[in-house]
Each structure stands twice: as C-alpha cells, then as structure tokens.
C-alpha cells in the first residue's frame, strides 16, 4: 500500500585507484568481451589523434624517466663498491700494493680471501674514498630527481590527454542522442541505451585512464630492467627471466580462478540485491500476507551463498600478493647466495649484487601490473565497442537546406494520404486524410494501439512519413525546419517527464527566459500554484523521482503549466489529465478551454467526459478513422463512439449493472512493446 513509485538510487560506482572497493579484478563489467577487439581498439586510438603532440611528449618523457630511474640502482651499486673497498682496504696494512696483499693472503692459506680481494678495486690501508663516493651519490641524486620530474611531467600530460579524449567522447555521445531519430529510441530497450551512455562510458573512461598511465611505464620498466640485469650478469639474469614467466603464469592462474569466483560473487550479489529490493519494496504486502518468515529464510540462504562466493573470491585474489612476494623472496635468496658466492670468488662486485637485488624487486611489480592490465583493457575495449555502436547509429535527415522560418502560424493542419508504419511488416496508418481548421479542437478516441499517439507524433515530425504529406498552414512540414514545426506546438504527454530541478525551472522549460510573472500566471491558470503554496519550499521545491511530496497528478499539472507557458499555435494533449483527480480535472477543464481558444488543439483522452465539446471527434481503430463528427452527431449515429460512450456513462440511475467510469474501453491487456501507438 505504501509503495510509491520508486527507483533504485543509482548505486555508487567506485572510481579510481584509491578505493580498492571491488577487489582488483572484479569490476562490474566482468566477463564482457569485445567482438572485434582489434578494430575497436584501433578506433579508440583514433580518438587520441587530436592529442598526438602531447602523446609524443608523453612517450619521450616516459622513456627518459624510466631510463634514469632504472640507471639509479646501478650507479648506487658503485657507491656500495666504494664503501666495501674502503672497508676491506682499511683492514690491510698500508704501503703494500693490492697484489702483495693478495699474495699475503694466499700465503697465509686464505685462498678465498685472496679471491675476494682480487675482485675489489682497493688500495690497501686506505679507507673509504669519500670524494669518489660523493661524486657517485651526487650522480644518483641527479638521476632520481630528473626521473621524478620527467615522470611527473609525463603523468600530467597523459592525464590531460585522457581527460580531453573522454570529454570529446562524452560530448559526441550526447550529440548523438540529440540527432538520432526517435525511432532509434523505440527500437531498443531504454535500459540498454542508458547503460551504454552511463556504465559503458564510465568504464571506458576508467580503463583508458588506468591502462594508459600504467601500461607504458610498466612495459618500459620491464625492458630497461632486463637490459640492466643482462648487462650486470647474464647468468643471474637468465635465472630471473626463468622465474618471471613462472610467476606470471602462476599469477595469471590465480587471477583466472579468482575472476571466475568474482563473477560468481557478483552474480550472488546481484541475486541478493534483487531479493533485498523486492523484500523492501513489497514490505507491506509481505507483512500482511504473513510471508515474512519465508522471505527471511530465502534471504538467509542467498546470504550464505554470497558469503561462500565472496569468501572464495577474496581469498583467491588475496593470494596474488603473497605469491608474488614469495617469488620475489626466492629470487632474493638465490641472488643473495649466487651473488655472495661470486663476490667471494671475485667475479662480481658487491655493489652489482646490491643493484641486482634491487632490480629483481622492482621487476615483479610491473609484470603483475601488465598481467592485470590485460583484463582491464579487454573490458574497456568491450565498452568502447558498445559506445561506438551508438555513435554509428543513423542520424535523422538534416533539415531541408532552403527551409525558411516562419513564426507566425495560424494552425491549419492537413493530412494528405498519409501512410506510416513502425515496422515494415505491420501496417499502422494507411492513406489517412484529414483537415483541421485553425482554432478547432480535435479529439481522438479509440482503443490502445489504434494509432492515436502516432497521429500526433507525426504532426510533431517525430517520425518521417512513409508516403503522403502533412501540411501546416499549407506548408509541407517535411520541408520545414524541425525546430520550426515543434516551436509552434505545445505538447503534454501522458508520461510526465520532469527533469531534476525546481518546480519553477520545470515550468520555465516551456519558454526560455520566461519572467517570474509569466511563470506564476501559467501556474495559477493550471492549478499548480494551489499546491505549490502548501510545499515548504514553494516554487523552489526540487522535483525528483523519489520526491514523495509531489504526486503523479501534481506532476501532470506542472507539465500542463509548462505547455501553457509555451503559448503555442498548436496544442497537443495526450492523456494530459489521466492522473489528476476528477475535481481538479473539472477545474482544469476551464483552464484548458481558455488555453484552447485561439489555437488548434489535438486532445487524446480516455475519459470521454473531457472531450464532449470538441469541434471534431475522430474515432480511430487500427490506424484508420472509422468515425468522425461532433458529439451529438456521433451519439445519434449509434456507432462505435456511442458504444464507447454508453459503456463509460451508464450512470448511477441505471442502477443494476456495476460499471466503471473513465477507463479505457480497450483490450486491457495491451501489448507492452508497442510504443503507445
């Protein structure tokens, strides 16, 4: 009972690197794959073209920065060597040469020490050469500072590139929405389209940001470190190069398994969320029907399943870090041992071992990053593909080049042999002709699916005709600018679309730059003013989906006020008062009557009471006009209209048969897929 129309508040999406909210590989778009990865990826790269100068700079800066950063440990290793040489050298007596020291060690039966000494660049008796050390460290500092600055420049520029690209992509999507024909919106589920422009666009932006910023530096780092390691010792490097593919394979294995677990987790999350949504939305019903215990039992089952799934997913993804660490440690141990043996044997310097250890430590991170990037890239390109599909949609034909704007219209509308169908194989309106004189009110009645809304949609030029023509004051509307056709027309639809803004802004939508007085006048004429006064914020009340403070009927009044303010030559009212209670409607009728004088009006209504005084009533069935005339004529004729009318108004006096007013005398089980035709 207390279940007002509700929409799920948009669930918070988790953005950026800072919030490890979903586990590393468990984004919402898991499992999506692009059907044409290469083509879409290339097309996405094409969007980066306008930024190519900046991208060039980014690549140069990245190469330089990574090169400097990777050189650092190598040079630092020389610092260690200087210290080591000094420390060892000091233990030897001064005045002898290095060769003498080695001989002395060998003579003392200390062959191993002799080997060690052989590999060190030392002067016996002399301590650490601080001059040389200072020199080395200064170079290292310069390398690191330079690398930091370059890396900062690179990050800065790359961010600009990505943001600018995403900005252009979003604008293109928005442009597209405003230039595809309405037919496009009919052809696919609304949710699907919404998902493309929001979820896919967001996912694309995020993937672009993350892959671009990490992919390049990660790959460069891998290459440079490999070069360094091979340069220091190719045998040790070989060892690392064996462990790396192993660790990558291991990481990929765990990732793949955790990915399936994450998919499971999100499936369960979805199921559980649906259950919660249903339980809370149908809260009152569940209670009154005494079903609470079952609902709670169901919830516990699903909750337990979700626990199992999310535990597994979390555990598996939590394994990646320790495993990588372990592999890093094994590398560390092996290099410490092998390196230690070589230093002892004099074939490698301590500083080199030191540098090598640093390199192996830094090697694993970019490798894992590249591995995880692959998933991200896939889902990003899949989203890009879906966005591109939207961008490829056919646009409506451009306005006729020679079209002239005329603002002063009288409102004479004529249909000349008009045919139109939504689907090629389903005829709707066939060869319809009709002339409406300025200032007249035309009512259109008939069952759902008869083509009533279609008729007015055609006047608005929402759709292009298959054949025939429609003229406004004698001019073919297909030769006019769309804006001109519509600017002369005010429309109130059954489904009350208001945007998220104040009541004032929503009324003012009817006329750009409307003054406060005009808004108030329109509001008063349409009874909006009356309920606005009872709202705490008055005209500043925000209209939104969850706003329980404004009822459906009140929303409808606001849309009427909006059309009232627009003051058009042609007025279209499509079930404009269906949600308004009868007393208010009666009052509204007067206002509408005022609105209708001086202009041509088309009124679609289910409540026949509201159209009784129309100049012309069209009864439509299956896209054709089966009867026309005014109320009295049609009643007298005793045809379809009279039947409808009598069904609705078999008033109380007739007593016996229970009846109902104001209901669609139509097949009630309407086909939901048809755009209310």
């Amino acid at each position: 009972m207390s279940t007002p129309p509700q929409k799920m508040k948009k669930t918070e999406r988790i953005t950026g690197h800072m919030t490890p909210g979903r586990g590393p590989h468990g984004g919402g778009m898991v499992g999506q794959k692009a059907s044409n990865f290469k083509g879409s990826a290339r097309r996405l790269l094409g969007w980066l073209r306008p930024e190519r100068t900046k991208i060039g700079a980014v690549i140069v800066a990245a190469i330089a920065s990574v090169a400097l950063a990777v050189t650092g440990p190598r040079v630092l290793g020389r610092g260690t060597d200087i210290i080591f040489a000094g420390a060892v050298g000091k233990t030897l007596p001064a005045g002898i040469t290095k060769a003498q020291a080695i001989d002395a060690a060998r003579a003392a039966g200390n062959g191993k020490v002799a080997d060690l000494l052989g590999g060190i660049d030392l002067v016996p008796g002399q301590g650490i050469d601080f001059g040389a050390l200072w020199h080395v460290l200064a170079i290292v500092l310069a390398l690191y500072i330079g690398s930091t600055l370059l890396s900062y420049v690179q990050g800065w520029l790359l961010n600009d590139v990505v943001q600018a690209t995403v900005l252009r992509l979003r604008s293109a999507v928005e442009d597209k929405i405003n230039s595809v024909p309405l037919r496009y919106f009919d052809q696919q589920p609304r949710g699907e389209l919404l998902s493309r422009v929001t979820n896919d666009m967001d996912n694309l932006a995020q993937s672009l940001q993350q892959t671009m910023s990490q992919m390049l530096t990660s790959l460069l780092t891998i290459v440079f470190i490999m070069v360094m390691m091979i340069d220091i010792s190719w045998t040790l490097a070989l060892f690392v190069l064996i462990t790396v593919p192993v660790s990558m394979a291991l990481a990929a294995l765990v990732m793949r398994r955790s990915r399936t677990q994450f998919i499971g987790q999100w499936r369960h999350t979805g199921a559980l969320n649906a259950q919660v949504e249903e339980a809370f939305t149908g809260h009152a019903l569940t209670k009154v029907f005494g079903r609470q215990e079952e609902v709670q039992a169901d919830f516990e089952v699903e909750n337990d399943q979700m626990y199992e799934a999310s535990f597994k997913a979390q555990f598996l993804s939590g394994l990646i870090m320790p495993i990588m660490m372990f592999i890093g440690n094994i590398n560390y141990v092996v290099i410490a041992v092998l390196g230690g043996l070589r230093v002892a044997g004099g074939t490698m310097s301590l500083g080199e071992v030191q540098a090598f250890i640093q390199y192996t430590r830094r090697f694993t991170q970019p490798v894992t990053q590249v591995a995880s990037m692959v998933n991200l890239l896939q889902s990003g390109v899949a989203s890009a593909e879906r966005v591109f599909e939207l961008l490829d949609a056919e646009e409506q034909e451009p306005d006729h080049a020679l079209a002239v704007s005329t603002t002063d219209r009288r409102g004479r509308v004529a249909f000349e042999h008009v045919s139109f169908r939504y689907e090629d194989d389903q005829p709707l309106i066939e060869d319809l002709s009709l002339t409406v004189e300025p200032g007249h009110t035309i009512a259109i009645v008939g069952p759902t699916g008869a083509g009533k809304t279609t008729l007015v949609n055609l006047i608005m030029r929402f759709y292009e005709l298959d054949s025939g023509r429609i003229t406004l004051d004698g001019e073919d509307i297909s030769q006019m600018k769309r804006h001109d056709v519509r600017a002369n027309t005010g429309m109130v639809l059954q489904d009350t679309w208001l945007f998220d803004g104040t009541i004032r802004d929503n009324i003012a939508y009817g006329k750009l730059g409307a003054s406060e007085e005009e808004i108030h006048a329109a509001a008063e004429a349409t009874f909006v003013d009356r309920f606005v006064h009872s709202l705490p914020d008055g005209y500043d009340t925000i209209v939104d989906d969850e706003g329980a403070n404004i009822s459906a009927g009140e929303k409808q009044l606001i849309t009427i006020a909006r059309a009232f303010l627009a003051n058009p030559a042609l007025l279209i009212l499509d079930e404009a008062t269906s949600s308004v209670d009868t007393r208010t409607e009666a009052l509204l009728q007067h206002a509408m009557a005022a609105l209708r004088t001086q202009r041509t009006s088309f009124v679609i209504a289910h409540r026949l009471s509201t159209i009784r005084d129309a100049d012309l009533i069209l009864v439509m069935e299956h896209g054709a006009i089966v009867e026309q005339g005014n109320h009295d004529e049609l009643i007298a004729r005793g045809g379809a209209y009279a039947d409808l009318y009598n069904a609705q108004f078999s008033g109380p006096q007739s007593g016996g048969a229970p009846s109902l007013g104001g209901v669609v005398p139509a097949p009630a089980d309407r086909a939901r897929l048809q755009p209310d035709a």
Partner: protein
Amino acid sequence: MLLRLLKENLRPYKRWIAIVLALQLVGTIAALYLPSLNADIIDKGVVTGDTGYIMRIGAWMLAVSLIQIACTITAVYFGAKTAMAFGRDVRSRFFHRVGSFSSREVGRFGAPSLINRNTNDVQQVQMLVVMAFTMMISAPIMLVGGVIMAMREDIGLSWLVAVAVPVLAAITGLIISRMVPGFRLMQTRLDTVNKVLREQITGIRVIRAFVREPFETDRFETANKDLTDIGIFVGRWMAAMFPTVMLVMNVSSVAVLWFGGHRIDSGAMQIGALTAFLSYLIQILISVMMSTFMLVMVPRAAVSAERIVDVLDTSSSVVPPELGVTTVLKHGEVEFQGAEFTYAGAAHPVLRDVSFSAKPGKTTAIVGSTGAGKTTLLSLIPRLFDVTGGSVLVDGIDVRDLDPQVLWGKIGLVPQKAYLFSGTVASNLRHGKPDATEEEMWEALEIAQAKAFVADMPEGLDAPIAQGGTNVSGGQRQRLAIARAVIRRPEIYLFDDSFSALDVATDARLRHALKAVTAGATVLIVAQRVFTITDADQIAVLEDGEVVGLGTHDELLDTCPTYIEIVESQLKAEAS
C-alpha cells in the same frame, strides 16, 4: 559508530581474529628476518670467503620465506573468512531489523535508501574489514619491527628513520588529503553527467517537442566540463603521488649510503649491516605508505557504518503485543474509533477523528480526492501503521492487542499499486495461501477474471513473473493481485483503487464474480470513480483527513456537499 558496529559484529569471530593476528605477527617477523640473514651472508660469508656459510644461510633464508608465505596465506584465509562472515551477519541483522519495521519506518528511510544501506553500505564496511585483516594489521607490525631491526643493525643511523618516516607520511598525507575530496567531488559530478544523459534519453520527446536540444546540450557541456576539470585536478595529484614517494625512498637510500659509509669508515658498523639497514628502511617506508592509504578508507566506511547503525538502532513503531489475543468471537468486523494518524515530522495529521464501523457482509466504500488519506486509512487495519490517536478495532479488539498472524490471517489486501513478486503465477498465488491446490488457484483466477490469460500462457500457472510484475500488463497485474487476495478467502477485503486498469466489461464481470465470494465478508473499497460504488452499503467521504459524510449514495446526495461535488465532477457530461 564504526567501532561499535565492528565490535558488536566481530565478537563471534574472536578466535579467528586471534589466529590472523598471530599469523601476521609471525609472517612479518619472518619477512623482517630476511635482510638480517642477508647481512650475515655478507659479513660472515662474503667477506671471509666462507662459501659453506653462504649456502647454509641461503637455505635458512629459503626456509624463512616458506614460513612467511605459509603464515600470510593462512592469515589471508582467516582474514577473508572473518570479513565476509562479518558482512553476512550485518546484512542479516539489517534485513531482519527492516523486516520488523512498519510501513512508517520504511517510509521514513525510503525503500531505495534501505536497499542501498543493506547492500552497498555493508559492502563498504566489509571492505574495510578485509583490508584491515590482510594489510592494515601487518603494516604497524612491520613498522615497529622494522624500526627495532634497523636499530639493532645500527643505532647510529636510526635518526635517518626518524627523518624519512615523518617526511614520507607528511607527503603522502598531503597528496591524499587533496585527492580524497577530489574523488568524492568527481563521483558527484559523474553522477550529474549521467543524470543529465539519463534525463535526455527519458525525456527525449519532451525535449524535442519544446525544441530544447540546444539548452540540453549546454546543460550537458557544463556538467561534462565540470567533470573534466575535477578529473584533471585529481589526475595531477595522482601523477605526483608515485614519483614523489619513489623520490623519498631513493633519496633515503642515498643518505643511508653516505652516512653509513662514514660509520663503516670509523669502524662503528659493518658493511652487511649497511645493506640490511637499507632494506629495513625501505620496508618501513612502504608500510608507512600503506598505512596512509588504508586510513583513507576509514572515513568513507565510517559514513556507511553510521547509515547502517542508524537503521539498526531504529525500533519499529508497530510492536507486536507480548501476548496477543488469538481467539476472537466475531468474524471480520472493523471499527475506527476516533482514529488519528500523523506522519513522523509532519505538522498536520493525515487522518483526524475518523469513526465508523464496517460490518461483515457489508461493503464500505471510501471516496475523496487525492491526498485525502484514503490509503492511509486502509493501512491502519493491517497495522502497516499504528494510529497516533484513537484506535482501530477488528472484531471488537484493538488491533494492537491482536496476535499479528491472527490479524493478517483475516485480511486480503489488494494494494493501489499491484505489486507482484518475482517467481511464477502460482508462487504469487501461494503468497495468498501457501497450501493452495491447483484447483483453488484456477478458481481464484477465474473469479479475478484472470483465468483466460493465464491459461493462454504456454506455462500456465508456472508462467514466470518478473520482479514487481513488470512482464505482464497493468490490467493483468491487477487481476493477479486480486486473485492473490481472493484465494485466501479472508474475512476482511481491502481493495485500494484496485480496478483502475481494467476495461469496463472485465470490471463488470469481476465485480459480479466477487460479489458471490465476498458475500459474508467485510469489504472496504477505496474508489476514484463514484459510479463504481453507488450500490455500496455505506460510503465514507474523506476530505483533508476527516470523514465529512457517511451513508448510502442517496443519503449523501442529500446531505454531503463534498460528495455532491465529487459526483458532479464525474457526472458533468451526463448532466442532461
């Protein structure tokens, strides 16, 4: 709030938490032990050329690594288990709490908000717990242990730690403190961009009809530009983050080498200790960085925790009686005695001093304009709300004293918005009567004029129904909702404007069929259209929450101006 939520819900998992703590401790100590062993390799093996020693210590290092990974993996296992169990328990407690709510509390929070809290907010806090058990616990251990180990290696260099740690903490803290509000703002602006796009798609006809495409494009461009601006801002700080952190670490290692060199030269330190010290310093700095990252999550989780606790701390305004009356003598009599109802926080009551009774076998209709309180009045009977004044009696007993199961067992409700549950036609009917047979189902469907279309569906009674019933038409939904109430054969029928989507003929047949079934029951009908209820035994006219007329159609036509107004507004066309 956050602490309380954690404390209360982690209590059952004390043992697991103890295991995680112990394992993380051992694992971290093992990790810290490695550089020290490496120092030994250099000092005692490399310098003296003792290859045997190098091999021995190497094997020992390998063993320590194994201990470390074993500990860490087990800790991750129990940490994930605890965190997910925590999430499961909070979700469950939350769900049960909302289950106990009346429509009043549900209305106060709003169903969408409750859904969000039960899912996303719990997720948010759960994520913090995961992070806490996998990373947050080890960071301080690493920090303290690292400092101790570094000082053991060389006390004289430890001042470097004292300098580097605050510097790094300050830098990461500064950058993150800039980034976090930026991220929040980015989220809001992203929502705005998406909202505008959403509105453009849902309102496309209106936008085109009013030729507002340029206006909409402007609106979008502004939102898009705002989003890009904040994206650029956040991105720049992010670009600064890692290079700066790396710089601090690198400069620290250079400093260690320089000052360590002097210590070695003076004989106060060994060369191996220098290497070890360097490793410790880096480990310490990494754990500082991690801690700073983790701290960022806390405020966000705290907000979520507050939103959860807020609901958990709310108790229902409708409390079932301790010892509810289970035996009643009468069958379905409803009586309002000066009933008053005020929504929480509202200045004026929605219902004021409503008194009338509805008897078994009689039909009572309630009419009045939108917002007069008709639906609220019906809701008082099944205690979706409790009166804030006066009382509602069912079979002579205050509904607040009746056992809820007994009360609800008497009622068949057809709400204004015909809401169906996901499942099948049959499962929805079983909501009305759990043990209903197929025959009973078909009978109920027949009464509700739903038999034909259900029989036409290929799966018949097993035809799937989507959540809310969105896969059937409005009229079908209403008829199924009626069948769901009818199958109960309740003593009290509550129809809240339940025939609005039906066409005339169906409506007539339905009412006729219902008449036979409801003959002995109490029927309350909220109606928009007067003509549908002129033959009611009693009509209550509501106006601004008050009963301004009570009687039959003919009586009211003589006495009640509001009723006359309503009738006239609907009869206008007929006034010939």
